[in-house]
C-alpha cells in the first residue's frame, strides 16, 4: 500500500498532523498478509486514555476480597491438561478493572463476597478462603445452580452472586489468549474467505445455490482491477 502524501492542511482550527504508519499489505492468491503497527495500545483518544489511567490509579477490592475472587474464579474455571486456569488468564485483575469501569458491579460483588464469608462462617466457623476444598465445594454446589422451586430460599443472594461471578469469569477468560486458544477461535487473521468448508456443508446438508456460483468472488482475481460492460456485467 502506498503511503498517502503528507497532508496539506491549514491551521486555523487545530489540524492534527498525523504521522502515518507503515502498515503494508501483501496479497498472494488466497494468502493475505498484512503488517500492522504494534505496541501502540488500543487506539484511545486522549479522554479515553485519561479514563483508563484514572481507573488504574485506584484500587477497589482489598487483598482479602481479591483472594476470594481468585479462589472463586479458579473454582469456576480450574486448569485443564491443555488450558490454563482463570487466574492464569488474570481474570481477577479484569474483575478489579471492570468493577471500577462499570460501577454497577461493585455492590453486588462486594456484598456477594461478604455473603459467602458469612455463609462460610455459619457453616464452618471460618472465612471462605480458609475452608478446605471440600468445604468450599459444599457451599459452591448450593449456589452454582438455579433454584426455581425455591427449595433453598436462603441461598438466593449466593445464587445471584455466583451467576455474576461465573459470567465475569467466562468473559474475562475467553477474551484472553489463553481462553481463545481453549475455545479454538481462529478469526481476527487476514484471509481470503472462500466459503464454508465442504465437509461442514456436507455435515449440515447445505450447498451453495448453483445459479450463484458464477457470481461469487473469485479470490484468485481479487487483485485484478474491476471492469464492467455498460450493463453492469463484471468483465474481470
Amino acid at each position: 500500500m502506498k503511503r498517502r502524501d503528507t497532508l496539506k492542511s491549514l491551521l486555523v482550527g487545530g489540524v492534527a498532523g498525523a504521522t502515518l504508519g507503515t502498515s503494508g499489505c501483501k496479497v498472494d492468491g488466497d494468502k493475505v498478509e498484512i503488517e500492522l503497527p504494534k505496541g501502540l495500545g488500543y487506539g484511545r483518544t486522549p479522554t479515553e486514555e485519561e479514563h483508563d489511567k484514572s481507573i488504574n490509579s485506584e484500587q477497589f477490592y482489598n487483598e482479602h476480597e481479591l483472594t476470594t475472587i481468585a479462589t472463586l474464579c479458579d473454582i469456576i474455571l480450574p486448569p485443564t491438561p491443555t488450558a490454563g486456569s482463570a487466574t492464569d488468564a488474570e481474570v481477577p485483575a479484569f474483575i478489579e478493572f471492570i468493577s471500577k469501569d462499570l460501577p454497577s458491579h461493585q455492590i453486588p460483588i462486594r456484598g456477594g463476597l461478604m455473603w459467602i464469608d458469612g455463609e462460610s462462617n455459619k457453616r464452618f466457623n471460618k472465612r471462605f478462603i480458609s475452608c478446605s476444598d471440600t468445604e468450599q465445594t459444599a457451599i459452591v454446589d448450593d449456589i452454582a445452580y438455579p433454584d426455581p422451586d425455591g427449595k433453598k430460599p436462603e441461598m438466593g443472594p449466593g445464587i445471584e452472586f455466583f451467576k455474576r461471578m461465573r459470567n465475569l469469569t467466562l468473559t474475562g477468560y475467553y477474551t484472553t489468549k489463553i481462553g481463545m486458544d481453549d475455545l479454538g477461535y481462529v478469526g481476527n487473521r487476514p484471509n481470503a474467505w472462500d466459503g464454508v468448508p465442504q465437509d461442514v456443508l456436507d455435515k449440515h446438508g447445505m450447498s451453495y445455490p448453483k445459479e450463484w456460483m458464477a457470481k461469487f468472488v473469485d479470490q484468485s482475481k481479487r487483485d485484478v482491477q474491476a471492469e464492467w460492460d455498460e450493463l453492469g456485467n463484471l468483465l474481470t
Partner: protein
Amino acid sequence: MQIIEAAKQYDAIIVGSGAGGGMSAFTLANAGMKIAVVEAGPYFDPKDPTTMTQMKWPWESPRRGASTNRAFGDFDMSWGDWEVDGEPYTKEEGTDFLWWRARMLGGRTNHWGRISLRFGPKDFKHKDVDGLGENWPISYDEVKPFYDRLDKLVGVFGTNEGLSNDPDGFFLPPPKPRLHELYYMKGAKKSGIPVIPGRLSMLTKRINKERGVCFYCGQCNRSCNAYADFSAGSVFIFPAQKNGQVDLYTNCMVKSVTTDSEGLATGVSYINKEDNREYEMKSKIVVLGASACSSARILLNSKSSQHPNGLGNSSDHVGRYLHDSTGAGLGAFVPALMDRKIYNEDGTGGMHVYSPWWGDNSKLDFPRGYHIEVWGGMGMPSYGFGFNVDAMNKYIGGDVGGYGTKLRDDVKRFFGAYVGMAGRGESIARYENRCSIDPNVVDKYGIPVLKFDYKWSDYERFQAKHMTETFAEVIDNMGGIMMGDLPGKDKDYGLLAPGQIIHEVGTTRMGDDPNTSVTNKWQQLHDAKNVYVVDAGPFTSQADKNCTWTIMALSMRASEHIVEEFKKKNI
C-alpha cells in the same frame, strides 16, 4: 467577544466531512474550485496507528471492548455516539429520539455498516402508490446515472437480480454466505421470502491503485487501514486534498451561515474548539453536509433581518418531516449449529446475504416495507461473551448452572449457534415529527441546541409487528428457538426508538413548492440560491433502504450542479 475574520475567501465552504460533505469536497476540488472543509471533530485517518483499532485483540482493552466509553464498544470507530460531551439535545416531554453524532473527519462513515442500497423507482414516487407522504421532485431515472458512477467510484459488492424496486448496478463480486446465512436462506425460502447476496461498500476486488482489497477481518466498523471499505476520509477527503485546493479545518464547529443584505450566504461563523473563540470565514457558496439534524440546526440558528425565522425557513419546514428507519429484531438459538467445527468465518464486516422487501403492502395493515439483515457466526469474543451460556441448556434438556469442565463444554458447544434477524423499514414522514431550536438551552460552545419532538404511528408499529412475527416464523423454519418472547403491544411490538437506526432524514426536504419544502431538486435552498444541503436533510422520504448510498449519489448530483452554476457565474 471579538469575532476573528479570516482573510482568505473560498469558492465554497463545505460543512461536514461525512458521506455528503466528503463527496461534495471531492467533486468541487476535482473541478478546480477553492474550498474549505469544516469538520466539528478532530482529524482522523483509518491508517493512523495511534488511533487504529482494527485487528486488535479483546485483551488489549482492559474492559474487553465493553461499551463504557463508546456506545458500540471500545473498538468501534466513532468518536461520539448518542451522547457527545458538552453537546446536549433535548426532547419534548413524552417523546423520544436518539441522536448519534460522530465528531471526527469522515463522521459516521468510519464505523457504519456499509450496507449500500439504491433507492428504487417506487421509492421516489411512493405517494403515487399509497397516497401517503410526498413524492420526490426527482425520479429514479434522474438519479440512476449518479448511482452508476458512484458504484464504480467507491465500490460496492452485490449482484444484478433484475428486481423492480431494488435496481441493478455495477457490482463487485459478493462473498459466499456463511453457514448461519445458509440456514437463514433455507428458513426464509420456506416462508417465500427472497434472499439475495448482500450489497455492501467493501472492496472484494481492486478498483484502483490507491485502495486495498478486503482481507476479511469482519471489522469494517473499526475502519479499514487498507482503505478497503468506504470511509469518507480515505475515499473522498484525502484524494480531494491531493488533487485540489482544499483547506481542512478540524475541531471547528459551525454555528451559523452568515448572510448579506440580499439574504445570500457570505460564509460561515464557527467556534474553534481548540481556543474556544468564534471565527468567520467567507465564501461564495456554502454547502451543508453536517448531517440532517446538524444542518437543520445551523440553518435555524442563522437568523437575520432577511431570514428572521432562520435561513431557508420562510416555509417553517426546516427540521420538519424528520424521520428515521424503523427497526426491530429477534435472536435465535439453532441447536443444529451446536458443536461446530471451528474455522475462520469472519468474512466481510456485515451480512453476506439479505432479504429485500418482498411484500404487497396493499394487502397488509402497514403501508411501507422493510428489508431483513442477518447476523450470527463464530465471532471474536468480547465483553459479554459467555454470559448465561449455562442457561442455554434449558433448551436442550441439559443442566443449567454449574462450573468447571461442564462450563467449559457449554462455552464450546454453544459457540456460533446463534442467528439473528433485524428489520430496517420505511416510516412515513410526518409534518409533526421535527427538531427545532430549544429556546432555553445552549451547548458548551454557546450554540442553541436542538429539541426533538418525534412519535411513531401505528404504521410503524404494525410494520414492526410484521417484522418480529416474520422472524419468529423463519426461526421456526430453521429449527431454531427464539430467544425471549415475541414483543407485544405494550412494547410497540419491538419497534426501536426513533433515531436508534441512525438513518435520520428529511429535515430540509426537497420539493418544487417553496411553501412546502426547503430545497429545490438540486438541493439548493429556495430562500438563498448559494446555499446547498448535501446530507440526508433533502430526502423527501426514506425508503426501506439505508440512506448513505443515496446521500452520496445525490451529493454528487448537487455538487456537479454547483460546479456548473459556479462556472456560469449564477452563484
